[in-house]
């Protein structure tokens, strides 16, 4: 069998899948504005409360130069110690107001922000979990994790730091100018105009260039930690080739790039700060000269001049802080667009139809699976499966074989409703699976994929994931059936042991045992196994498959496999090549007929060194049902 076409097709298909991998969408800015309006609108009273507290606090803060000015007036215009004591008392009162305002303002702002964050977190997480399997497969979990954790973190950072700073500084800047205008409106106007005019160029330059520089800094940072992670995790290969030297060079280059990008953002900040401070210096000079002139002409008191000067000294501080937060705000907006994009996509793909209760719900055996005239592909005009017609009677166990890339896994996805056919339909027990809600569908049709994930939860939670109502006795029984109980019984915490993908006790074989226990616990009527045991070495794969066979008796089973060992034990074999069914029937009949499957079987036997006599060891009489569970 010269199977090169099969393999090359497989690679083409995987490439297509990569290129067709729809990037997760971004929501439009108007959608994001709608979200913000909605989130804030539903918390209007809280928002107003926060604003009132902030205004009180900034007003108190803005009054301080004024108090100092009044003190100067008092001492220069014949006041006495009593007046000074009164001012000191006012100062204490202002401080107390500020303290209380800050405390409650911060708390209220945080409660407001955190409640939005919490809602957002749940919303994006639910949406992500509800995404159709086809989307999860095409975009990959990495991007989804980034959106549900990274982007939410970015938003949380902005909510906790940037937004309070922006609010405080905006109000602070306004309060400062207003207070100065109360002291002397002429000086206030002059200070604001000269300060702004002198700083304007620098500020404009910053607004134009800063965002790109911050973006580059983030990129170099993430590419550097990516490069580190890559080298750390691949160090065994680097050692094998003696290639650590080139890695140091590559990492050093990443480091240099990062420093350069950090210096570029530092440069942007510096130009902003210098221009703002020079603006402030000019404004200060003008205020002092004009103030002295007004003082001489009698239209300004010494105290007012002092206050005006002190206000000018504060003029630009909030502006600097505000502008330096703009980047975080832009980040937050981008993150929100990414988050809202997931939610929109998920809502657009929602499947809501319940499983119709046509006949008595008591039916527990396998269900019939009917694939009618189905055509499907990952990219337009390139069908991966073409006009497939297939009926699997209730309780039949079918193995689907064929070269990789032939469309086996695609068929599995279609039967499970993960993918929706372009044309035709997939029915389970006469119900079209397309529009059915996933949880309702999964109670009947389960998919066991090649990769299994062990959640960082207790063994109990891991096993009962599909049926949380299962009690400990049932869970233990499931674990016993897959042979997992033998090692779990020895664990000090038993079912409460927290396991994970990287848990030292979790070998691939044990993870697979847990996964099979999940299937038994769920007890679906149709089970689709997509290379479910391919990852194990042969010995444990054999055990797992035998156990599976014993457990799944009287269920409808669709077993996708690239090893043919178990084919003789099942009721029927379907061979797919180049997107079509090329052979279909019981193993023995197909062998006798010597069609495509017969040739595949011969090639498999030859490759696996067996003599033809060995094949007879594996006739259906050696049924897995005879094995003790």
């Amino acid at each position, binding site marked *: 069998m010269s199977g090169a076409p099969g393999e090359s097709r497989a690679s083409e298909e995987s490439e297509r899948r990569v290129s067709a991998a729809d990037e997760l969408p971004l929501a439009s800015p108007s959608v994001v504005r709608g979200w913000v309006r909605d989130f804030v609108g539903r918390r209007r009273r809280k928002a107003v409360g926060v604003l009132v507290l902030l205004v009180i606090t900034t007003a108190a803060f803005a009054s301080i130069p004024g108090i100092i000015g009044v003190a100067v007036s008092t001492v220069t215009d014949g006041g006495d110690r009593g007046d000074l004591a009164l001012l000191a008392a006012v100062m204490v009162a202002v401080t107390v107001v500020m303290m209380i305002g800050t405390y409650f303002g911060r*708390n209220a702002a945080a409660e407001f922000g955190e409640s939005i964050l919490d809602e957002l977190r749940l919303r994006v997480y639910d949406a992500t979990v509800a995404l159709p399997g086809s989307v999860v497969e095409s975009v990959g979990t990495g991007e989804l994790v980034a959106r549900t954790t990274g982007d939410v973190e970015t938003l949380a950072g902005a909510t906790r730091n940037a937004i309070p700073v922006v609010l405080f500084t905006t109000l602070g800047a306004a309060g400062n100018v207003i207070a100065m205008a109360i002291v002397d409106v002429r000086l206030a106007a002059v200070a604001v105009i000269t300060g702004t005019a002198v700083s304007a160029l620098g500020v404009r330059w910053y607004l134009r260039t800063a965002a790109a520089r911050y973006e580059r800094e983030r990129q170099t940072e993430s590419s550097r930690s990516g490069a580190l992670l890559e080298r750390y995790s691949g160090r065994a290969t680097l050692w094998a080739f003696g290639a650590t030297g080139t890695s140091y060079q590559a990492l050093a280059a990443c480091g240099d790039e990062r420093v350069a990008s950090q210096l570029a953002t530092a440069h942007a900040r510096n130009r902003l700060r210098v221009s703002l401070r020079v603006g402030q210096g000019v404004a200060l000079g003008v205020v002092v000269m004009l103030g002295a002139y007004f003082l001489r002409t009698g239209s300004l008191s010494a105290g007012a001049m002092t206050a005006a000067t002190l206000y000018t000294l504060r003029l630009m501080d909030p502006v600097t802080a505000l502008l330096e937060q703009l980047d975080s705000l832009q980040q937050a907006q981008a993150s929100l667009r990414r988050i809202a994009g997931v939610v929109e996509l998920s809502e657009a793909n929602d499947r809501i139809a319940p499983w119709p209760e046509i006949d008595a719900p008591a039916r527990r055996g396998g269900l019939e699976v009917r694939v009618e005239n189905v055509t499907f592909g990952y990219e337009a005009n390139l069908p991966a499966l073409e006009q497939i017609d297939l009926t699997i009677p209730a309780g039949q166990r079918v193995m689907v074989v064929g070269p990789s890339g032939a469309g086996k896994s695609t068929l599995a996805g279609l039967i499970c409703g993960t993918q929706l056919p372009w044309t035709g339909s997939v029915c389970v027990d006469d119900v079209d699976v397309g529009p059915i809600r996933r949880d309702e569908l999964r109670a009947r049709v389960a998919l066991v994929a090649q990769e299994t994930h062990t959640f960082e939860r207790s063994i109990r939670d891991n096993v009962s994931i599909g049926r949380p109502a299962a009690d400990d006795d049932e869970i233990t029984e499931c674990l016993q059936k897959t042979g997992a109980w033998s090692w779990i019984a020895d664990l000090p915490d038993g079912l409460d042991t927290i396991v994970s993908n990287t848990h030292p006790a979790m070998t691939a074989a044990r993870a697979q045992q847990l996964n099979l226990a999940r299937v038994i616990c769920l007890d679906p009527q149709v089970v689709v196994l997509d290379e479910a045991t391919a990852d194990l070495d042969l010995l444990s794969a054999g055990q797992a498959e035998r156990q599976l066979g014993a457990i799944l008796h009287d269920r409808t089973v669709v077993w996708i496999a690239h090893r043919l060992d178990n084919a003789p034990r099942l009721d029927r074999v379907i061979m797919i090549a180049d997107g079509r069914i090329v052979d279909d029937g019981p193993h023995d009949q197909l062998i006798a007929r010597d069609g495509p499957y017969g040739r595949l079987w011969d090639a498999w036997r030859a490759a696996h060194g067996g003599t033809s006599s060995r094949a007879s060891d594996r006739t259906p009489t050696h049924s897995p049902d005879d094995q003790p569970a």
Partner: protein
Amino acid sequence: MTAMMGGASAPPSPGYEATGGAIIRWALKRQWRWIALGATTGMIWMAGFAAAPVLVGYAIDDAIDGRSGARMAMWAVAFLGVVTASAIAGAVRHRCAITLWATIGLLAEGHLTRRVLDRRGGIDRPPAELVSLGVGDANKIGRIGDLTNRGGGAVVMLVVVAVWLLATSVSLGLLVLIAVPMSAAAILPFLSRYDERSTVERRELASASAAAADGIQGLRTAHGLGGGRQIRSWFRERSGLMHRSALSLVRIEATLFATVGAIPLLTLVPVLWYGGVQVLDGTISPGTFVTVVGLAQFLAMPLQTLGEAAGVVTAGRASARRIEQIVTTSASIDAEAATSTGSASDSTLRGDRSNAFALRLEAVTVGELGPVDLQVARDATVGVAADHQAIAALAGILARHRPSGGGTIRVGAERLDEIPLDDVHHRLVVIDSERPWLLSASLLDNLRLARSSATRADAEAALRNAACDEILARSDALDRLIGERGLQLSGGQRQRIATAQALLAPAQIVALIEPTSALDAATESLYVERFMASARPTTLLLTTSPRLLSACDEVAFIHNGVVARTASHHELLETEPAYGRLVLGVE
């Protein structure tokens, strides 16, 4: 020791035995020029903030005295000059700070990287943890560099301002110099409590988002079994905790902000009152009064900087200790010890059968495996059929990721454990092609990892010999970027590229672990055909694939930890029932 310190291209380092403190000192020392420049400009920058209230005071006195416009213009120019000088010095200081922060961070991280990538191994923490440790802790060490220049300026300005205040009015100066530090000290307990709590809370938040990530990574598994609802409910638990812990952190934060904002203002109260009294008494001028009030506010700045410095240094030292812990992890291979003990004993063997065998294992044990005796003739292709654990154990000692429990391994005449670690790849290359690791770079760059001098023709030949026809068929075959961890390729393609790398490696022996486990039968056949026909060094195939084993010159079958028999695949099938069970899964 220098021989295995990572080779010529490894960056300079304070040495593996360096303590956390030594790492910090080493990094700071290498950057002393930036530190000096930063401290000088930092001082000028901060002086600008102190000078402003002084100038304001003088200007106000002159204005009250009705001085000329020219006099006031002089003060205006002075303001502009001082503010501009301070701003420019501040810019230089900021540049120094960022340079120091970044480069010192990189130095610390490089120190860690050098140890992690060191051939002697011994560090078995998950790479992601090492990276977050490296990046996070290196960053914290970097901040010490930033603080050196603000801190220096702060100390100088504290002294200058104190002298100026005392010279102006002893009683008022004393009042300021007592009240301001006292108020600063009052904040400290809040600060340290906040630091503690925020560390705890942030860790909780991080673990919650790790749990969220765990759920999503398992989405495919959960989807297949209808576990979506469960995953959501798990996240709701976590999210609720996250929400509550964020709120409790906020309450501390709010207390801190309220206190930090209020205490400096409260210290103004006595200064305002007593300063005013002194003006009334005629002891000081109104302008001096404004200056003192301004300086009292200014003093909060250097004091805060010093407080921050204390925190940064503490955190940096803790980070340096964490890096120290990893870097000082003892190596799993002690090349030095092996060299010193081994050399005498085998001089007699050296001339012996050195040319007949490329590789010899004599009574090698490791864990439950062994004693294993195995001889691989020069230019032969030998299969080793064993179960997963035995293959992993054998590969581990051949690759020198771990020492063998006993016995000797010879490559030609040399003992494997005496070959300098940096030279091993010239003799023996062990590739775990079951879990191939590829760089996110072009295909050619990946192949050149194995031999940097490989030409495009070499690379293409290697790919062809590894049955990568469909990869070569693409127009951009060699220049194609293969994505993070090579994930733009299929598992089978990654696996065959690992073989192509092995074929390029300039080694005397290549050992491949399960190079065909992800290939379908047809591709495996093509692979075996091409691979066996290719020109390559002595080859060891650690595998249970019957197709691959049947093409080997001979197969060593390891059973119950020892080589049960070495023979051809077919012979083993007929004589060793356990072999049939292992490679065919038949009973």
